């Protein structure tokens, strides 16, 4: 198959619009030939790091499958340095001459990072926390909740996706008190992970949409885990009033400021989890983690002597 397509990533676009542009790449097979015109940024707008991650991981995945991808990348002046610092061009296999001095990103953001094992993934989580602290994010409850959530999401990639590779990007915008994070994989997706040989036979009856809708419920699992990872993630968003968007296969779930929507979306192989969080939010880590004040009080008497 030979095709030409345009992919646009800018702050004026939603994730679903970017996914729609990327769908032909995600559906391509070895031997296909794709000519892509990438438009990064548009007019005076910028580009979000998570949008760059979607494009980079889609193209990288297609190249790894044996798809031939050629084309051009049109980057606005405001975006090209940022995209380069994010290692975007490196992952899409485009040589880009940096006409600026690249300073260490440490303390600014976690650039688009591919992690091939859980150890590297966990180190990236630690790095993200250091970056946020360095940027004077002092809300300990948010930091702890985020590190817990990200550690679970990294674990999910290797427990469920059946692909030994994940993608991560993170940035904190101190002036906006806004954290944006995305973790993605191009594995088998939530529907297949949940419904293939589940311990709970009832899950075999779930539709792809139902699988995505229910993946955030406590205890929903194929039996490999306890079904906590995405539940913890959703608890964080519920408590903080932030945004959680999950894209997997042809379905999505979004929780935004207490409102929940779900439905069809352009195809993504595997799973994408996006978080946007207000760094000033007041949250209770124990409740996010599935505990409660009652539980801690009751359990203290049994367990305190285990911890010196």
């Amino acid at each position, binding site marked *: 198959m030979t095709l030409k397509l345009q992919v646009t990533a800018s702050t004026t676009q939603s994730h679903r619009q970017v996914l729609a542009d990327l769908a032909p790449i995600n559906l391509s097979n070895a031997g296909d030939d794709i000519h892509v015109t990438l438009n990064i940024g548009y007019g005076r707008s910028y580009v979000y790091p998570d949008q760059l991650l979607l494009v980079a991981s889609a193209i990288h995945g297609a190249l790894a499958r044996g798809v031939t991808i050629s084309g051009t990348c049109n980057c606005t002046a405001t975006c090209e340095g940022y995209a380069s610092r994010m290692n975007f061009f490196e992952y899409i296999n485009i040589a880009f001459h940096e006409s600026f001095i690249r300073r260490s990103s440490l303390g600014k953001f976690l650039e688009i990072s591919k992690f091939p094992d859980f150890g590297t993934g966990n180190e990236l989580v630690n790095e993200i926390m250091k970056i946020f602290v360095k940027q004077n994010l002092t809300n300990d409850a948010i930091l702890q909740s985020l590190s817990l959530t990200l*550690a679970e999401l990294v674990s999910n990639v290797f427990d469920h996706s059946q692909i030994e590779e994940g993608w991560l990007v993170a940035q904190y915008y101190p002036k906006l008190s806004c954290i944006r994070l995305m973790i993605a994989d191009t594995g088998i997706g939530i529907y297949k992970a949940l419904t293939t040989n589940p311990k709970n036979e009832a899950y075999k009856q779930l539709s792809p949409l139902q699988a995505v809708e229910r993946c955030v419920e406590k205890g929903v699992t194929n039996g490999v885990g306890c079904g906590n990872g995405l539940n913890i993630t959703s608890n964080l968003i519920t408590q903080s009033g932030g945004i959680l968007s999950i894209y997997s296969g042809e379905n999505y779930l979004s929780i935004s400021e207490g409102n929940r929507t779900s439905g069809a979306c352009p195809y993504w192989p595997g799973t994408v989890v996006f978080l946007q969080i207000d760094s000033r939010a007041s949250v209770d880590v124990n409740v996010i*983690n599935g505990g409660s004040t009652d539980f801690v009080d009751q359990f203290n008497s049994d367990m305190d002597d285990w*911890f010196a």
Partner: protein
Amino acid sequence: MVLEMQKFGSVLGSRRLGVIVREEILNALAANTTVVFDMAGVNTVSNSFADECFGKLLFDVDFDTLKKKTTFSNSIPFVRDTIKIAMNQRMSMSSAIA
């Protein structure tokens, strides 16, 4: 035996890592060695890791014996509470099956 958990990372966050560490713990217990889990330098323990590493020890050892033969040191409250939550969840699952 002191098991310095930081050697596995400051973020202990995956089930696969939990399997590896649990194997090490079980080997020590089989050799009749008491184990101290030194959590110094560990900032985060995920629920998944805690369940796989500590919770599933209950498949081989009852909780009272586990408390006699193992202990934690230098764990920050956040890490301690996550482990407690995971242990409670695993015990509840085991009770439900029984």
